[in-house]
């Protein structure tokens, strides 16, 4: 498993790759609410699947709710909990 910083950075890169607006990419931070970036639930789930592939984990569906994937920090915590 990567270090804490690596996890956040990798997830940030994945999220950024899904954004089209340059301004939003530049303003992206670990605690930026994904909803404010125009990321809807389907896109959030797509990002989740990409993150699963990146870190080779499979998040249980029971662990999923929007509160746990509302920003990059949450996503990172979720991935770490599978370490």
């Amino acid at each position, binding site marked *: 498993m990567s270090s804490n910083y690596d996890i956040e950075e990798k997830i940030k890169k994945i999220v950024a790759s899904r954004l089209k607006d340059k301004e939003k990419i530049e303003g992206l931070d670990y605690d930026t609410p994904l909803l404010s970036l125009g990321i809807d*639930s*389907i896109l959030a*789930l*797509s990002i*989740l*699947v*990409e993150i*699963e*592939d990146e870190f080779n984990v499979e998040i249980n*569906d029971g662990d*999923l709710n929007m509160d746990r994937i509302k920003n990059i920090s949450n996503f990172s915590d979720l991935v770490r909990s599978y370490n």
Partner: protein
Amino acid sequence: MIWPIDEITNIAVKSAHNNKPYGIAVIDIDYMIRFCRAFTNEELNMIKENFLCFFKEMFPNNSKIWQSSGDEFLILIPKIAKADAFQLTDRIRRVFKRNKFAVNTDRAFKNITFSFSAGVAAYPQDGDNVEEIIRRATIALFLSKAFRRNRVYPAPDEGQQGVDRILAMPDGKIHVLAGKYGEIGDFSVPIKCQEARFWEPQAIDIDEEGNLYILDQNNHTVLKYNGENVYRVAGDGYYGYTGDGGDAALARLNKPTGLAISKRRLYITDTGNDAVRVVELDSGIIKTIAGTGETGYSGDGAAGYLATLNKPGGAAVDLDGNLYINDIANNVIRRVDKKGIITTYAGSGEYGFKDECRAIDASFAEIYGICTDKTNSNLYIADYFNHCIRVVDYNTGIVARVAGTGECGYKGDGEDPLKACLNRPVAVTSDIHGNLFIAESGNHCIRMIAAATGKIYTLVGDGVYGIGESEEVSKFRLANPNGLAVDNSFHLYILDGANNRICMMDYSQIIAFGKVL
């Protein structure tokens, strides 16, 4: 074909211009029929619309999507290689199974999730025309459904003819009796056998007079072939759970998957209703013999119609009139005796392989077809993921393996069946001479344990799926065979599942010469 081939071809031809690859995914929403019972038609349409919107959002913008009248989707993805099309579809599956498609209904269970199974094929690897590529994607879809659904399968590469097989009847002939790959039909009126078209048939059996019965799952019916016409004997063609006490042909079933006939009684495992129905063939009256319509595992020791089952599948009846039901999701075999009392006959419910013990203590890895032999001595069990055939001796109640080492494969022809490898056996039947026939969905073949030699051989198929057209058994291919029946004149009927058809072969020469080969 349920898809508009000309329209798809037009788009595919453009995509294939300059030899650019393209992929086709055929997607089937898993267990949609169960959801049909939970929602109104209006809600279902909304959910299906949500599926469509989802696929539009997830597949690349240049993809083209077709939706069947039911719950199937065909997606053409231009400029994509097969491996990428597979990976993309599988990723989409993982998103799909977590998304909430019923959230805009006003239901307490609106947060339920759905899953899908899919098959993926591509140009040019899988063929040079759209029809062939769709065919191979559809076969792959069947494979993904055979492996418990919620998965994506790439169309398998065309392999070489099975080198390890030994044909029991190398110069034998096989005929397509009814059905055709890619065409579905209904049976609102009796229809000539050659013109009959099925919709995912799941089981066949033969009555004492030699009439063939066909369980046509997606038409929610049981059909009878009387040597001339095919017509409904149970189920009116629509899903539901109605009609007990009345004419079976007007009753409603829900995705039935198994049947057994004995002494003018037709037993139907009404899988979607978690019940077993019985039709008195003389009167045509249907009733429920086991199951309440609720899902569960209860009621042993009392009347069958008070018990609960969980997805009953295969069925068999012994010569004494006791009914055996493969209670799939409970991973056990239940028995309803002549008095109508239900008990658990085999299986502890645990998933695994425990053998050579009392049947009730044994474990299985998904049971599919079951049959009783003609001497009334044994119950044979197709143990799907243990890749073997098990038998319960009626006298001792002990379970044992009769074919298959447990290792998945295709070998051992000409040898002791206990040393042979099978691949996902799904149906088993026997004839009056004690020959045992096995349909292997993974090997796309029918094997035979010849009573005369005690050895296992291949009757038809070679480990590679296909749509056999020649009458030569040696060249004929099947796709996911999933049902078997024999009559007393040595005709073997084969349900060629993924090809939506029934084939028949005369194996009397094996009997006449008293040996195979």
